[in-house]
């Protein structure tokens, strides 16, 4: 994906951001590095442990890591390729064509991101395993084997494509239609326009989203555990229970793998391009005879990624509610007990999204406006946090807060939890943030400066409104990821603090299918509502 020809997107923005005049804000690099250091806390903790404990360092480079590492990289490569194709294709269809029901698809398409991967895997097994729902209800026999790498790739691709869909759709909404219109006027077919004009301009967004999918898959645990594909994280979680040395060493390896991937991506990618006027409505491609096929494609994507898991949950929830239960703890008799967990989930995820989005903004500015060694370092450190398993991040924060005098007052508080979410998922906000910063044409800022507007005023009245769609897309990703986060939540939340994800975990852990499904459905509904109000409705045409 890095070998595409240079994007032609500059045409819409005659002034490249890197050639901008004006003083370089002296505080930008220090503040970006300071933020990056906060993000790097868990990785630094792992490095220090490896430096102190010789055994950790030896295990980290031992031969035992090769097989699971190979499986992890294979899985992540397949999943990110699949997600890139699904995410880009669906984003183009709902923003650039006359696909029927676009408004509905735009709400539905990001939602699979909120389905916890272990629920997705659970539903897949329940549906497709021998004797499962599909065989039982539909009478279909000899279904394909869904365990191992096949099932893992399937589940993770279907649940992660929104990482690509969201930034690409946001970008498509910002692209000036003039180029596409010109190409059409010169007689290019829609597919040629897509390949030659649209795709190059989307490159940075696709790459940003695909990187997130890759790193997410690397740190994923819930689905591979249930589908029994022996990746790095699975080995780490097993090791944490008995052999902390190995677990720490392997976590460090994952962090280093993420750094490597980010460095490769940085070397290959150019800074996101600026775009020109966004006031024009994007060009609408008439699908014509492809309309039915395109609708079927989007429909089946939504069917498998969203409707199928939700359907399985509805089936279990319905069965539980109809039959009732004589267990005193059954949710079906006490739905009100989900109110507090739902509010906690909403509050934590919104706060984490805000903190992460604002927190990474200096780094996004630095990366786009002043590409330097510092910006690469800051960028890589933030992104590496995403690849570390949640359990490793949680344990690092336990040691760092309890070991550091005054910070210990924050141990197991909502504040620490929000911080953990922000550093775990900040990478998601960073990539979207970079695209957002890049969407501010330099000449606008120059013009505002020439008219005498101060830095704050320029930021609030010129840059922020232009960046809003991109920032919201990034915040949306953090929001959805936070809502379903489990390992760090279980360890770092204050005792007695429940979220929907912990409720679901509690119920699935002991196979209370009805309880798990009811809480799961509420989580999906809540994320749908939150993304609608906070993200989709506000990010303009998205």
């Amino acid at each position, binding site marked *: 994906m890095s070998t595409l020809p240079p994007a032609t997107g500059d045409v819409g923005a005659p002034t490249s951001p890197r050639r901008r005049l004006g003083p370089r804000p002296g505080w930008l690099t220090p503040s970006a590095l300071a933020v990056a250091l906060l993000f790097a806390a868990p990785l630094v903790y792992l490095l220090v442990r490896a430096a102190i404990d010789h055994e950790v360092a030896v295990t980290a480079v031992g031969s035992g890591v090769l097989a699971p590492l190979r499986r992890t990289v294979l899985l992540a490569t397949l999943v990110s390729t699949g997600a890139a194709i699904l995410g880009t294709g669906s984003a183009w269809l709902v923003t650039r064509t006359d696909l029927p029901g676009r408004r509905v698809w735009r709400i539905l398409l990001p939602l699979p991101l909120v389905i916890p991967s272990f629920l997705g895997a659970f539903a897949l097994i329940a549906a497709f395993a*021998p004797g499962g729902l599909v065989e039982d209800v539909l009478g279909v026999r000899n279904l394909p084997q869904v365990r191992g790498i096949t099932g893992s790739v399937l589940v993770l691709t279907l649940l992660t494509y929104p990482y690509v869909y969201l930034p690409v759709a946001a970008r498509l909404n910002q692209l000036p239609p003039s180029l596409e219109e010109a190409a059409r006027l010169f007689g290019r077919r829609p597919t040629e326009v897509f390949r030659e004009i649209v795709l190059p301009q989307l490159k940075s967004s696709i790459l940003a989203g695909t990187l997130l999918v890759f790193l997410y898959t690397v740190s994923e645990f819930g689905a591979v555990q249930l589908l029994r594909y022996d990746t790095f994280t699975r080995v780490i979680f097993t090791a944490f229970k008995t052999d902390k040395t190995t677990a720490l060493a392997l976590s460090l390896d994952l962090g280093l793998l993420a750094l490597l991937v980010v460095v490769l991506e940085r070397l290959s990618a150019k800074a996101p391009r600026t775009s020109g006027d966004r006031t024009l409505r994007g060009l609408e491609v008439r699908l014509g005879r492809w309309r039915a096929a395109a609708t079927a494609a989007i429909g089946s994507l939504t069917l498998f990624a969203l409707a199928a898991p939700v359907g399985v949950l509805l089936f279990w929830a319905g*069965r539980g509610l109809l039959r009732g239960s004589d267990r005193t703890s059954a949710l079906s008799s006490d739905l009100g007990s989900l109110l507090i967990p739902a509010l906690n989930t909403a509050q934590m995820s919104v706060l984490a999204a805000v903190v992460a989005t604002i927190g990474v903004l200096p780094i996004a500015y630095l990366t786009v406006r002043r590409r330097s060694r510092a910006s690469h370092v800051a960028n890589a450190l933030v992104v590496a946090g995403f690849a570390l398993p949640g359990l490793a991040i949680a*344990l690092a924060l336990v040691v760092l807060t309890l070991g550091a005098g005054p910070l210990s007052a924050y141990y197991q508080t909502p504040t620490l939890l929000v911080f953990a979410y922000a550093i775990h998922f900040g990478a998601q906000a960073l990539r979207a943030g970079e695209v957002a910063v890049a969407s501010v044409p330099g000449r606008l800022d120059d013009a505002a400066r020439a008219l005498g507007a101060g830095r704050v005023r320029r930021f609030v009245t010129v840059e922020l409104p232009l960046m809003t769609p991109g920032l919201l897309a990034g915040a949306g990703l953090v929001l959805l990821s936070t809502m379903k986060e489990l390992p760090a939540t*279980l360890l770092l939340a204050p005792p007695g603090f429940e979220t929907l994800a912990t409720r679901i975990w509690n119920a699935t852990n002991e*196979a209370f299918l009805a309880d798990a499904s009811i809480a799961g459905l509420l989580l999906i509904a809540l994320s749908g509502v939150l993304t609608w109000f906070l993200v989709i409705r506000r990010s303009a045409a998205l």
Partner: protein
Amino acid sequence: MTTASRPRPAALLAMVALLAILASACTGSSSELTIYSGRSQNLIGPLLDDFAEETGIDIAVKYADSAELALLLAEEGEASRADVFIAQNPGATAFVGDEGLLAELPTSLLDRVESGFRSPSGRWIGLSGRQRVLVYNEDLVSEDELPASIDEVVEAPYAGRVAIAPQNGSFQDFVSAMVIERGEDAARRWLQALADADAPTYANNNAIVEAVSRGEIEMGLVNHYYNERFLAEDPSLPSRNHSFPQEDLGNLVITSSVSIIGTSDQPEDAQRFVEFLLSEEAQRYFSDETFEYPLAAGVEPSTDLPALDDAPYPHVDFDELGSTLELTTRLITEAGLT
């Protein structure tokens, strides 16, 4: 487009205000009894609420996997704010005990439970028991062709037909018991035989019972209560529990347990809590609601369950489980079971 291009200072202000509230809300009340529970909320939550209501003692519960909580307690060390640790399996408790983080319990409490189900060093008390069983699908296997011992499970004609959950805490505790009782080599041979026969493996007990009940596999090694719960949700399922006729490691009874953390700042409340869990009311709850065997003297198990003595079980020193666990997981991994 119009909504996006208006700056929203009010929204920003609201967010900053929210953050300020959050930052100030970080001091927890210290009068609460902090419970780390490796038993999930669905299993024990209502009982804990009853305790708070009856005694007026405020509680705050952190639910997570027993092994993860053990790890957390070890990282927290002396700084831990936890008062009580409820563990699903003895391995996790023994791990925390070996770190020297558990208080010694008074004999008045220890004596409430039979000696096989409490710590010899007084660091934990068993709350409820669950038995290892062989779950089978009665449509696929008839009762008289079931294996008669845990050793037959890995021999012809059963080899490869019995599923296991190699990463499950209870399965690992069972293998640890085998290491303690028969030695490392015997355990290695048994595991190797399973692996050679290509025994189906699953992520956890639930998955095995589900697979057995829908006919994907014939048999599996699990804890007894999973199938009881499945049958409670859907009585028409063809899955049944089977215990081995003679005293057998495959009939091992594993305990959930409660301990008091050494650094607890309210040990009296913690003791009242332990006492409550051993009361008839609580023990009856385990029996009736979670289909487990009550362990405190004088409380009879639910009549729906087979009597514990029907399936003779071996007595194992659970305190040794903690230090054996690392060897056990290595043996399981080396056998190629994942």
